[in-house]
């Protein structure tokens, strides 16, 4: 994955960021030189001016590094987000992993920030600065240089050792933490249900117990995990003592001058610092890596080419299923098993059967959301797999079971994907029995719907979705998934009338639970466990 991520980085900004970090790190050497010189009296007070300049330059480079890192991070996130968004559109809407996708594309990618703005620059500095410091120490004082050279590798070695032994445990612990948050969210969401059964207070003690168990387990892990930082801290500070005390003794014997001694004292910690900084940033950075891994896994997934190039013959088409079997990945039972079916042009078919019988799958099949694992679907004699799906879908009007309302105006929600004029939108709304409540909204058709259209009732949402279908007067095939499921008697009969009008002169496939909807069809097909068990034609117009 690192390679994938590296390839996506904006080179120029990253180079500026890392360059600035390295130069600023190297300036610490100059700073130490000047400070040691002034304090030992080797340089005059005038050397304070260049020293101030060095500080200024370090600050400026820090500024450049931060800004460039910010640009790198936002550039990478933006790029990944664009690619992910584009990728979502290639996935079949029948796949359910929406929660994961929304989190990843939203806050998930923000986890890359510590990786890009903190970890990467610290790696660059750690690769260059300790070496430079060591070289300077070798020139200044061989004994010190050797002490630092021998102790310095202990930091990465101990870091890796402790890291390796605690990695699995730590990761398990962090996952447990995420689960803990999930448990809490779950309980809060289900509070009304708990309240109804008098279990709300009891759950408070469950929350406490779960958290308490989690804390003691976490602390056990942390006691070991933090040993790594203890070791690193000890190596760094003891090395300083190891350097400083002999230096002091050699000064005493006059075998070393003060300027060198102070330089050594100032420089020695700078050899360890970059490695420790890199270590402390590692954990936070790895979260970003996980997010990036997820993103690249999604981007790398093979999406079967679903769309062909052919166009079905014009006019209201005949739909033919030839022993179609549909299987969803990861499920044992097929959703549809060898279903053969001919739906004539202009026929109105009601699909009935228990939930899970395959009714919605049949609709999704016609929409091209799922592909048959065996058999084929013919539209006007042309295999659906060969058809240009976008062109085919333009000839459909679809009302799903749980229509999604977009964070846009009511008018845009009705117009969805078509350039319909305001007057057309109004007509469509009126036909779907939605005009009355839409006009009562604060801004009428311009009212923006909130999170998932939360400010409309289930019945109202359903009618907005129906209005969408009415807004496509040219659609030849109507696919409705329980359009009146959440409506009361009177709204149902109103919607029914509209649906009847909508279905006129079109092929209609309607998943129906309620008798009124079934009544609208001139043919009823009953599905059970993915097969057709009943198929009867009834006199046009039903039994009234």
């Amino acid at each position, binding site marked *: 994955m690192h390679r994938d991520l590296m390839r996506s980085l904006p080179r120029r900004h990253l180079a500026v960021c890392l360059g600035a970090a390295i130069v600023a790190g190297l300036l610490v050497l100059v700073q130490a030189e000047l400070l040691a010189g002034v304090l030992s*009296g080797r340089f005059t007070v005038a050397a*304070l001016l260049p020293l101030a300049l060095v500080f200024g330059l370090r600050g400026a480079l820090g500024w450049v590094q*931060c800004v460039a890192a910010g640009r790198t991070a936002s550039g990478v996130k933006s790029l990944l987000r664009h690619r992910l968004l584009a990728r979502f559109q290639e996935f079949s809407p029948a796949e359910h992993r929406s929660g994961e996708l929304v989190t990843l594309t939203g806050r998930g990618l923000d986890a890359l920030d510590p990786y890009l703005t903190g970890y990467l620059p610290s790696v660059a500095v750690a690769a260059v600065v300790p070496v430079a410091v060591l070289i300077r120490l070798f020139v200044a004082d061989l004994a010190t240089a050797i002490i630092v050279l021998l102790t310095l590798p202990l930091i990465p070695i101990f870091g890796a050792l402790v890291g390796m032994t605690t990695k699995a445990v730590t990761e398990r612990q962090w996952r447990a933490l995420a689960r803990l948050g999930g448990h809490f969210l779950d309980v809060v969401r289900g509070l009304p249900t708990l*309240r109804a059964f008098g279990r709300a207070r009891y759950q408070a003690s469950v929350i406490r117990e779960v958290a308490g168990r989690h804390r003691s387990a976490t602390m056990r892990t942390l006691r070991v995990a933090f040993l790594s930082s203890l070791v690193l801290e000890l190596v760094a500070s003891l090395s*300083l003592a190891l350097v400083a005390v002999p230096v002091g003794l050699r000064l*005493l014997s006059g075998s070393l001058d003060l300027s060198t001694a102070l330089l050594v004292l100032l420089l020695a910690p700078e050899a360890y610092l970059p490695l420790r900084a890199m270590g402390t940033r590692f954990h936070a950075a790895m979260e970003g890596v996980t997010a990036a891994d997820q993103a690249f896994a999604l981007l790398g997934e093979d999406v079967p080419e679903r769309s062909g190039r052919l166009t079905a013959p014009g006019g209201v088409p005949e739909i033919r299923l030839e022993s179609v079997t549909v299987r969803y990945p990861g499920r044992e039972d097929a959703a549809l098993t060898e279903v053969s079916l001919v739906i004539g042009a202009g026929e109105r078919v009601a699909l009935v059967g228990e*939930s899970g019988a395959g009714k919605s799958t049949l609709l999704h099949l016609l929409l091209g959301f799922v592909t048959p694992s065996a058999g084929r679907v013919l539209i006007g004699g042309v295999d659906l797999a060969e058809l240009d799906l976008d062109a085919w*879908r333009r000839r459909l009007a679809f009302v799903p079971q749980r229509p999604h309302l977009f964070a846009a105006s009511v008018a845009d929600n009705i117009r969805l994907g078509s350039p319909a004029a305001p007057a057309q939108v109004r007509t469509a709304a009126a036909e779907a029995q939605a005009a009355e409540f839409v006009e009562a909204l604060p801004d009428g058709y311009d009212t923006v719907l909130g*999170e998932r259209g939360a400010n409309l009732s289930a019945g109202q949402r359903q009618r907005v979705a129906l209005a969408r279908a009415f807004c496509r007067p040219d659609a030849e095939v109507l696919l409705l998934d329980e359009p009146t499921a959440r409506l009361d008697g009177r709204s149902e009969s109103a919607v029914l009338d509209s649906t009847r009008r909508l279905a006129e002169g079109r092929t209609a496939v309607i998943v129906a639970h309620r008798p009124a909807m079934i009544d609208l069809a001139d043919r009823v097909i009953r599905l059970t466990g993915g097969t057709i068990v009943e198929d009867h034609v009834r006199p046009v117009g039903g039994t009234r």
Partner: protein
Amino acid sequence: MSTLIPPGMTRRLVVAALAGSAADLAGLGLIASAAWMITRAAEQPPLAALSVAIVGVRAFATSRGVFRYSERLAGHDVALRAQAATRERLYEALIPSGPLSHRGADLLSRMVDDTDAVQDLLVRCLLPAVAALVTGAAAVVIALFLLPAAAFALLAGLVVAGVLLPLGTAAASRRWSARLAPARADLAARVADLVHGSADLAAYGAKGEALAAGMAADDQLAALERRQARVSATAMLTGVLAQGLTVVAIVWICELSGTGPVATAVLALMSLVAFEPVLPLAGAGERLTGVLAALRRLADLRTVPPAVTEPAKPAQVPDGPLTIAVTGLVVRHGTRPPALDGVSFTLAPGHRVAVVGPSGAGKSTLLSALMRTVDYESGNITINGVEARDLASDDVRRLMTGLTQDPYVFQASFKDNLRLAGPEASDADLANAVRSAHLDQWADRTGWDTPLGEDGRTLSGGQLQRLALARALLFDPPVLLLDEPAEALDERTADSLMTDLLDATHGRTTLLITHRLRGLEAVDEILVLEDGHITQRGTHEALVSTNGYYRTLWQAEAMLHS
């Protein structure tokens, strides 16, 4: 502060703060004693003069790591405790509040994230600030003994880096988060639209537009984030300058005042190191804005008034066969017209009453009022003569409950999801409830220990409804309330479920809310609720022979079933 730190934790917090301060002080001591030792050694005094400093260097070097280790352990322990306590108290505060579902899933998960803020506040803001304060003060005091003028320079530098700079970053981050939050929310909404609405978009060929809108929202956010990066960049610049210029100034002051090389070196190197715990405070200031906003949101949640007022001294819970009498009940949601306006009826022991009516007529509000999850404005609900509002609401729900709107499926096994309604129920009880709810075949096929996924995705709408019904039957309250039990079931299952339900509730006190009229011949009384008023009441036979909502609906249904 006292609201954040649960009782008994102050001591732990003090331990963590002491350990953190000690670690930073050891760092300060290490560099000061090393600087003193080296510059003093250059004056070639007898070895004995250095021995204290040598011991100091070694002691400080060893103790720094140990202190740091204790600080991190104690800090994380406090943080985890604080987070757990925050969650528990938040949950307890939410118990009496109104329904949360309308707040939206994203808001709820943000609320859970907000409870992490307490951890951040303690570990990343408070403890570092205390350690920085102690270390800075110690450095200033030492400097005061060596050269007062230098102490003032150091104090000035530390105040700039440790007080002014964090205040500045906090203010800047407040300004920026006000601009970033809408951009983030916009992007989240676009992404949610693209993902949750993918079927609608694909079917209507509207992907392109939605994708463009998502990318535009991202571009806007990215542009803001790029500009926001300048805040931390400027903070970094200021911090390095404050540190550097303070050191330069101190050396210069020493030079002017003719201070000796030993004191000069100690002052300079100690000042350089004193900034180390102080400089990260700029980042803490930046983080503080988000943390405080999260804590404010949590505090707001805790002060949401309870949905119902609990009696100061709850009345005795009535027992024996229960008669529920509702008279002139008025329920109002906020300032809107009453949802229920003068509803009266009686539910006698062993009787079954059905409530029918169009959606929005107040059927579910009636049920909520009975279950005491909304308060009533006037009128009475009495249980064997005891006014419901004089009873603890938990007690009322022990007497009257059942299948409510929007039942929730927990991320637990099917069995545990059932068992919450009957913790002591035997396996046979569970099996009975499941059979009565027509869920037995599904349960046997799927398995009783199958975990039900997020939002109960492995359940269809109908199965969810049946699980909720099974819970209600398992809980077996004296008065059973059922809100649209056949909702979202297909016609055949709904019919058989209603038949079984009416059989199962035979002879038990039941209030049934429904929009399907079939089978209602069996209930004792039917109430037609329209616009908050009972417009018709009577038996099925009486109602079908009178003009009105019931007859119209009955005729429509009958026609479709013939």
